């Protein structure tokens, strides 16, 4: 399905490291994927797996001591990593927008929300004050904020968490970007509000046909909104596939573990949730082999020695695990 569409973003062997006083932390250790126009891709992983860092490097928002040390990020045929400051600034909020995890702290407390949304517009487009105001009101309506004329004059602290996340979405969408990066947009919200925001994002995506990279640690959220899912562990993508592949035909032990640790509504009878034992590897001194090996029940001798290669299982279902490497016995 997605093969027919136009390629929007292509990430090739992206490597990001943090140079801390203790040494180099390889937060992202070479990941590659393609994203087409209008496609919604989920990136799932536990905290510290490098999923946010990867998103920040696309936006050019990596902060010292973080640095992209290799690979390429191609947006519409141009390498974003070659952009200078001005080009990055023109891209951010205009071609790629981002919304963040905590809507409580992501809006500037001393400016009205209308002001902050309008700023995203005026930063890229030469519009009159009245036009900007009209656009803000229309945008607030689109994200389902009632009484936008009144709301736009309010300060962030006067709005609820769900409202603020809606404002963040309005702010991200006002320049009609090609790509929206949503970094755990529902994690800090109540479950009922989470569902509303997800509904809203699905709705908006349908209307605008933009691509979305949806970063989360919650597999349930992914199933709801994404076309394709990549599972990240310790800075690497361990498995990529369609939602159906990941949920019904998972091959990587980590994906299996994630699914087993997730409660299911459709459980046939009493099912225990199985946690993944152990803790993530120390990213400061990553061992040579597969990063998941120490926690893997099916760990083999080779897993400790070498990183597994990618294995294409067909239909875009790719897994990085020695167990899936075809063997000639």
């Amino acid at each position, binding site marked *: 399905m997605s093969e027919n569409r136009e390629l929007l973003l292509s990430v090739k062997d992206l490597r990001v490291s943090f140079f801390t006083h203790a040494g180099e932390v390889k937060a992202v250790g070479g990941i590659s994927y393609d994203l087409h126009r209008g496609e919604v891709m989920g990136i799932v992983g536990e905290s510290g797996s490098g999923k946010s860092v990867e998103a920040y490097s696309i936006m050019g928002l990596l902060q010292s001591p973080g640095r992209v040390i290799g690979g390429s990020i191609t947006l519409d045929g141009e390498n974003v990593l070659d952009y200078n400051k001005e080009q990055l*600034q023109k891209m951010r*909020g205009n071609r790629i*927008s981002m919304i963040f995890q905590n809507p409580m702290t992501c809006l500037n407390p001393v*400016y009205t929300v209308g002001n902050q949304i309008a700023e995203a517009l005026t*930063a*890229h487009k030469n519009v009159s004050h009245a036009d900007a105001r009209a656009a803000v009101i229309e945008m607030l309506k689109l994200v389902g904020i009632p009484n936008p004329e009144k709301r736009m004059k309010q*300060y962030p602290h006067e709005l609820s968490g769900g409202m603020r996340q809606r404002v963040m979405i309005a*702010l991200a969408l006002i320049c009609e970007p090609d790509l929206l990066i949503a970094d755990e947009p529902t994690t800090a919200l109540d479950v009922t509000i989470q569902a509303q925001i997800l509904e809203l994002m699905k709705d908006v995506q349908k209307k605008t046909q933009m691509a979305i990279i949806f970063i989360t640690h919650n597999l349930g959220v992914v199933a709801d909104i994404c076309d394709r899912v990549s599972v990240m562990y310790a800075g690497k993508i361990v498995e990529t596939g369609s939602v159906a592949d990941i949920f019904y035909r998972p091959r990587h032990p980590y994906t299996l573990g994630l699914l087993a640790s997730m409660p299911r509504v459709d459980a046939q009878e009493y099912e225990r949730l199985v946690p993944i034992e152990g803790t993530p590897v120390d990213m400061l001194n990553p061992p040579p082999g597969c990063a998941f090996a120490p926690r893997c029940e099916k760990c083999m001798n080779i897993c400790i020695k070498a990183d597994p290669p990618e294995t294409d299982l067909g239909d875009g279902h790719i897994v990085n695990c020695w167990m899936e490497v075809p063997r000639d016995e």
Partner: protein
Amino acid sequence: MIKYLLKRVLMGILALFAVSAITFFLMNLVPGGPFLSEKAPSAAVLAKLEEKYGLDKPLYVQYGNWLKDLAHGDFGVSFKMQKNRPVTTIIKEMFPVSLKVGIYAMIWAIIFGIVFGCIAAYHRGGIIDSVLRVVTTLGVVLPTFVTASILLVLFAGGVWKILPSIVGAHAKWYAYILPCFTLGLSPMCNIARYTRSSMLDALGQDYIRTAYAKGVSNRKVIFKHALRNALIPVVSYIGPMTAYILTGGFVTETVFNIPGLGRYFVQSISNRDYPIIMGTTVFLAAFVIVMTLAVDILYKFIDPRIDLAKEDE
């Protein structure tokens, strides 16, 4: 809001009451009276003088009388330094001089403090930042009299003789340079330090990341989004700064011979001119308290999150 104001005003009055009581009884702890210093008058004359100014009565009666007069806006009259002139007149005459020096000092302290603070925050961790850190810490710890004497040696004698060392009653504008610099140096450095740390704090906030993600320019992020938030804690320093500048005036005015209230206060202590000590102390304390309250209200206008009515902690 009104409830808050009432509470604050009440607290202020209580504090003033405490200040006046402490001052009054401390002052009277000092052995000897105002009329004993030079040639001691005869016992009869002394008794007459003490009766005239009510010094023969018990302390608590004297204090009660003083409070009663104060309720009518009367600080009493000077015993010695400017015989029988009302203290209010003396304050009216001297305070504007102190205020002038104080305001100049404050203006330069605020402007340069914020600028230096922003520069340091912008270059955080760099050489400029380290140099500014040492220089501003030095400025904070420099006692006023050391600054004043170094400046005098440098610019008013000793090394170069380009500025007057004394600010008389009819001094030219450039005579104010040294005292205003002296007085404003420590607050300036304090403001620079506050600005730096609150600027760094603001720059680390999530909304700054949002602003960058919107595609706002670096300059606009710093000056629109970070600075406005960073200045909020700095504003709260203006209250204590007023107090510092007024009391710092004691030394500055003494060293530079400025005919202001601070110098007069120091002189009145050694002269035991009770009404002047009392009047000046209470007046200065009231001024500081009112300024602190004004700053807190100003705060509300800068930071929309603060709801004074709910502020209880």
